[in-house]
């Protein structure tokens, strides 16, 4: 089947089997490899992308469900919130292996877009679906607070 995707501000024509998860279209067909495969069952969040600015798990979003939504991957993020999140991540050296961090950052942008000043409980609730086997959670939490603070001024 032929599909057209709006991704990172571009229209891209792709061919995929019906039912193919967006994750594999992004990675295998469009070569945007910043979005990661972790579990395939929406249990780790490594595949998180934005559909019309809402974080979704791309491993459980089939290509036909995307329709006209704008897909944003880690490669295509921009704007104040995204910049604040990336800057905070770098300032606190959050990453270790880094494999889950695209997904963490996509979720954190979603959180801060919805809740500009999140409490620890807000962070727990929103970020709980993003697993990090290196256990960088303490720094992720701190970086979200730093980003929130920097967005205030």
């Amino acid at each position, binding site marked *: 089947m032929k599909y057209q995707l709006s991704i990172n501000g571009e229209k891209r024509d792709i061919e995929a089997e019906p039912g193919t998860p967006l994750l594999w279209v992004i990675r295998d067909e469009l070569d945007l490899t910043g979005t990661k495969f972790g579990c395939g069952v929406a249990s780790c969040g490594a595949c998180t992308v934005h559909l019309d600015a809402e974080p979704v798990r791309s491993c459980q979003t089939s290509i036909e469900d995307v329709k006209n939504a704008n897909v944003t991957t880690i490669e295509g993020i921009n704007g104040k919130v995204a910049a604040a999140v990336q800057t905070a991540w770098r300032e606190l050296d959050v990453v270790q292996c*880094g494999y889950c961090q695209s997904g963490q950052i996509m979720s954190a942008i979603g959180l801060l877009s919805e809740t500009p000043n999140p409490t620890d409980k807000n962070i727990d609730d929103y970020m709980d679906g993003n697993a990090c086997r290196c256990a960088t959670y303490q720094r992720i939490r701190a970086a979200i607070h730093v980003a929130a603070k920097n967005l205030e001024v």
Partner: protein
Amino acid sequence: MTLNTSRRNFLVGVSASASVLVVGLTSTDSWAASNTAAEITPFIKIDKEGTVTAILKHFEMGQGTTTGLTTLIAEELDADWDKIQIEFAPADGKRYANLLFGAQGTGGSTSIANSYLQYRKAGASARDVLIRAAAAKWSVSPSTVDIQNGLLVSGSHKAHFGEVIDDASKLNPSAEPKLKSRADFRLIGNASLSRKDSHSKTDGSAIFAMDVKVPNMVYASVTHSPKFGGTALSFDLSKAKDVPGYIDAKLLPTKTGVVVYAKNTWAVKQAREQLSIQWDFSKAETRSSDAMVTEHKKLLDTPEFSATKDTNFEATGALLASAETVVEADFLLPFLSHEPMETLNCVIEPTANGVRVYDGSQFPGLTQPTVAAILKLKPEQVEIKTVYAGGSFGRRANGTSDYEAEAAMAFALLGGKTPVKLVWMREDQVAGGYYRPMAAHRIKIGADANGKIVGWDHRTASKSIMKGTPFAGGYVHEGVDHASVEGIADTLYSIPGFSVGLSDFKSPISVLWWRSVGHSHTAFAMESALDMVATDTKKDPVTLRLSLLNSGSKDHMRASAVIKLAAEKAGWDKPLAKNRGRGFAMHKSFNSYVAEVAEVSINSDGSVKIEKITCAVDCGVAVNPDVIKAQMEGGIGYGLGAAMRNEITFTDGVVDQSNFPDYEPIRMSDFPEIDVHIVQSDENPTGVGEPGLPPIAPAVANAIFAASGKRITSLPFSENGISFG
């Protein structure tokens, strides 16, 4: 369909400028290269634009080697930290051996420990030739030339490294260049130094093996035997053939599974689901977990091997018989899977001369000959391009190079001309073995009327990790796999009447080192048992530990110092609110000393909240203090998650777990505050990737006991009626 230019450049890692200076040394403490003193060991490249590239012999799995090794070079070279580039070394055991292994590989928390002098000398040597070349160019004395943040300076002369690189590369580097003294360090020990991999890992540009794509590549994935030791007899692919994108399926020559090929990852997953395989389980593990537990406990009755020279169970038994207080306990720890975020995978493609493997390669020294043997090539015909690894925790370091070997077989079965990406799904990995072995411990400790320990009978049983592997020679002596008893047989504590016995559990289930190896279970038994002694002899757990570390030896002094520091920072002596408790544990592993205090509270519904972990570590000179803190946080978090709720169990030989929903990782909401303190030290650097882990499970178990009176002697906590909230 191919890698874009910037990624290709990253992978290939070749500087645009042809003339590069390669500087390095044969370290005097080098293992094998020492008899070829003239050989240059390349760790630094400098191009004509003056760009310095650190060549990293250790891969990056998150532990911070890209930052650490680069720090050592940049410190001595006075390179500009923000501009220095990194590149992973190719497979070349002569140049890039781990000096503690004698082969190229990363593990055992040795990256900084074995490279500390080697990489600093490389940096100092480059500095020396650059200064001499600049001095000659400017007709000044070398003593007037300095390097300031990557620039050569003498009076009014100024040049970047590239301007003198041609001349410098013709000079003979000194074999023993002058190293900086500690007081002159500006990067080593600098807590505000930023990680070298932070930027690319926060914009999606960092390349992992999973992200490598080469022209005409097909995707392959293997369905393994559902029972360990099972073999595939035949398979039916009639349904798989109908899956769009399906290419082919082949029985692996090892008969350990069937490899399916397709045009993309999704198609290969779909096709595998349609495959029907006949298995032969006649030699397979078919027991369930209960039977395995029973067998482990039975093995404790009659230890097969004595794990220390002084072991004498009869003599220890006599001491215990006359003891005033006797503490007895059995400890049981489950099989555990590593589950790095990036599942196992690699890409193999043909080259003019052999093959190229793109891999988050932890043991190039084993993977290169393994792949070569399968493909009937010479090792040097196998090029390994090391890329970032999405975690490992031990899994990628494997004596059998299992997934790379599988990729080589898949590549050969398809004709040896088509590039293949071999991918494991999460389910393959959870059920795929190479687990931290199940371990049982039986401890009997006697104390006299003053509460002084007089005898300690310790028996343990687990499947040997090292026997039958290339590492057996170094680890197994007189039947004892040291990895099964490390942390017991070599305990720091002065224990009179100490006997340690070991029995090997036998099973086709494959086992492997899991972050901190044997220490991951021995520390739980040792530190829980000590806490029980403290309770029964009415001693403070910290005081008891210090009383067993009072010989005045350096080992005892360093261990005592971390104990005191952790206790002080945690407010060990301060009163606690109701329903709260603190637990203590200290363990030495990988030559580092770590003490941890866990503080927990019991919620009104009986669930446990882990409030805070205080950690003190002595790992010698702290090269990158912030990376050390991150590794303590990570080691604690990884160990805590496993202790809370992870276990691999079996029903009739089949693994019960399949993916994260039933092998649930630690999550943000589980995560306590972690407060890490580093002891100032002038000792040579020691491990940090693993030593944070061993004390966490016993510290939490001891805290739960302090808060609730419930003593937990088996893991995970979730199987002991403990829920976390």
